[in-house]
């Protein structure tokens, strides 16, 4: 090898020629082939790869939908129906794209939950986690703007309600709203800019996902025990071990996806969005898509508009400082007897908020929303900072390869052959 060329290990002359000058093959080999990965992942570690696949499905179907969609208030609804009726397999592309948004949120919510439960946000992965929160915010913006495009009743009124939230901010609020609308109400300029941004943002997400993965490959993956990799015995090469495992998970994911697309394509949608947008008729219940319901419940739990908006945005922004709010050095909740239950309760609060967000803001639903909102924030701002000081964690295993179980005895029968978890 002459000076200035990358020393490639590939034998094939063409690959070697390219790799010596631009080592993309070496990079792929290092990052996805031989990459040392903790051997004890459970199926929760599948969801990052699934999110990546989901993003690619959304971009691929979205590009074809954009070829047939017309972003104009008088034509958008009909152009979507034309896709459904007259474009070859248009119904398939549209239903994959619409349900793909729901699948994306299901996958990402499980991915985030994995991070919360196994402490993936803690040092040294703080930045990795924060980049993830950025991706989630971008996803929310993209999903929101995408939902406006079919220009049905929920598109229009959802857009009206959500953009109006910004008017709660003092001094700049009204200007922000005018800027978002491109005028003085949700109208054609709004639809046009939302379409443009809805096309742009997925590629921004793609870029930030690249950073997310790049940061992951510096720190390496966390694992269900939450302890650091110490010896080569703790890891297996990514390929073929996790390519094989992720492939199985991917097929299961496709089965869930397909059962929605083919047998219940409108189950997660709101029927009102099949009524063309009408600025003169307000629907009885304006509800966002299911994945936004928890934040919608937080918004409505607060009697004050600005307070509600601040808490709603705060409910996600608080994730940015989570690595410093959690003061415990122990990552995995498996070894945190109290925090584990506090987190599970937080998960329940999240689901309660999701339930209440779809209900009218009255009676018991308001009470439930308030209690759940309070706990949502208390978990991050009070419980986690305190627990790190007062909680006594269980003894940590010595290494991933040699887990020390409680009592230190030999592995219980069956533990080593359990197919779901390679502990």
């Amino acid at each position, binding site marked *: 090898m002459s000076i200035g060329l990358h020393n490639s290990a590939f034998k094939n002359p063409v690959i070697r020629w390219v790799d010596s000058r631009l080592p993309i093959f070496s990079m792929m080999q290092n990052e996805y082939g031989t990459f040392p990965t903790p*051997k004890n992942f459970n199926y929760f570690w599948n969801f990052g790869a699934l999110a990546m696949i989901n993003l690619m499905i959304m971009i691929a179907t979205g590009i074809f939908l954009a070829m047939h969609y017309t972003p104009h208030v008088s034509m958008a609804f*009909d152009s979507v*129906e034309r896709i*459904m*009726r007259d474009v070859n397999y248009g*119904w*398939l592309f549209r*239903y994959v794209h619409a349900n793909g948004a*729901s699948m994306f*949120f*299901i996958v990402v919510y499980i991915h985030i939950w994995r991070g919360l439960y196994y402490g993936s946000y803690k040092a040294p992965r703080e930045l990795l986690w924060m980049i993830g929160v950025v991706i989630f915010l971008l996803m929310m913006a993209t999903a929101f703007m995408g939902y406006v495009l079919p220009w049905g009743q929920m598109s229009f009124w959802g857009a009206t309600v959500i953009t109006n939230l910004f008017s709660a901010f003092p001094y700049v609020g009204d200007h922000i709203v005018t800027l978002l609308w491109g005028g003085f109400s949700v109208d054609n300029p709004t639809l046009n800019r939302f379409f443009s941004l809805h096309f742009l943002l997925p590629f921004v997400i793609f870029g930030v996902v690249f950073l997310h993965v790049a940061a992951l490959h510096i720190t390496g993956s966390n694992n269900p025990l939450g302890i650091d990799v110490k010896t080569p015995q703790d890891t*297996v090469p990514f390929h*073929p*071990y996790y390519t*094989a*495992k992720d*492939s*199985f998970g*991917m*097929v*299961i994911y*496709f*089965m*869930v996806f*397909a*059962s*929605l*697309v*083919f*047998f*219940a*394509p*409108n*189950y*997660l949608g709101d*029927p*009102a969005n*099949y*009524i063309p947008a009408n600025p003169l008729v307000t629907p*009885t*219940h304006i*509800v966002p898509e*299911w*994945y936004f*319901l928890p934040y919608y419940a937080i918004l409505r739990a607060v009697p004050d508009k600005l307070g509600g908006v601040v808490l709603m945005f705060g409910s996600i922004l608080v994730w940015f400082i989570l690595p410093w709010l959690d003061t415990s050095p122990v990552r995995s909740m498996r070894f945190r007897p109290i925090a584990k239950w506090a987190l599970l309760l937080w998960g329940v609060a999240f*689901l309660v908020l*999701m*339930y209440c*967000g*779809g*209900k*009218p803001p009255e009676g018991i639903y308001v009470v439930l929303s308030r209690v759940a909102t309070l706990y949502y924030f208390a978990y991050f701002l009070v419980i986690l900072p305190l627990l790190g000081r007062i909680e006594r964690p269980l003894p940590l295993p010595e290494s991933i390869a040699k887990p020390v179980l409680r009592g230190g005895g030999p592995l219980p029968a069956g533990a*080593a*052959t359990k*197919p779901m978890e*390679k502990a």
Partner: protein
Amino acid sequence: MFRSALRALALLGALAAGPALLPASAQAADAAGVEALPHPHFHFDGVFGTFDRASAQRGFGVYQQVCAACHGLRLLSYRNLRELGFSEAEVRAVAAAVTVNDGPNDEGQMFERPGRPSDRFRSPFANEAAARAANKGAAPPDLSVITKAREHGPQYLFALLTGYTDAPAGMTMGEGMNYNRYFTGNQIAMNAPLHTEGQVEYADGTKATVEQMAMDVTNFLQWAAEPEMEARKSMGVKMMIFLLILAMLAYATKRKVWADQH
């Protein structure tokens, strides 16, 4: 056998989606102030459901003779009727019965001509204001996607069409309003569209009871809203079988790869 296997899979999917499905189904339950919808068996129900073409063809007759006076079907073309089993000649005859505005011609004039199969269904009113003015202030909705635009669409449609009764004693009705057991607030501007047995004459000898007509037009409008349904479900069944086999292979591969790590 396959049916139950697929149901199980669908259930698996539903479970995985878990909390996500909760709000949607919960929302469905609180259509306030009206009776619970009856759930008749629809031919298009379920994973293997298809359109009952004979019923949907009769339903088209009901639409033409009853609904079309006030309700449009603007997203469909006459040519789409071929998919319901109508012949080319029948479709041409249906289309030719309407007059379509076209133009401008070479002299720059708009002109009228008989409809063609490629034309969209002609809507009964020129615009929404006209529809509103002619119908006690409530514009009759277009029916192209009506079964997708209401909670439990087909069920609701069937219930609404068969839900006209006399108002209960003591209830004050608005002027010109009709009592319907399933309509929100129970007062609906639309007069009972299907009211008399034999109101629509069926060519195939089926007895045209109100229930039968309601069922037929529900079948027709479900087809109108989801013309792709049969292709979708049949592709879905093939897809699930393919994925099931792929899942078994992927799992076997995964077990084999990991065998040395256990």
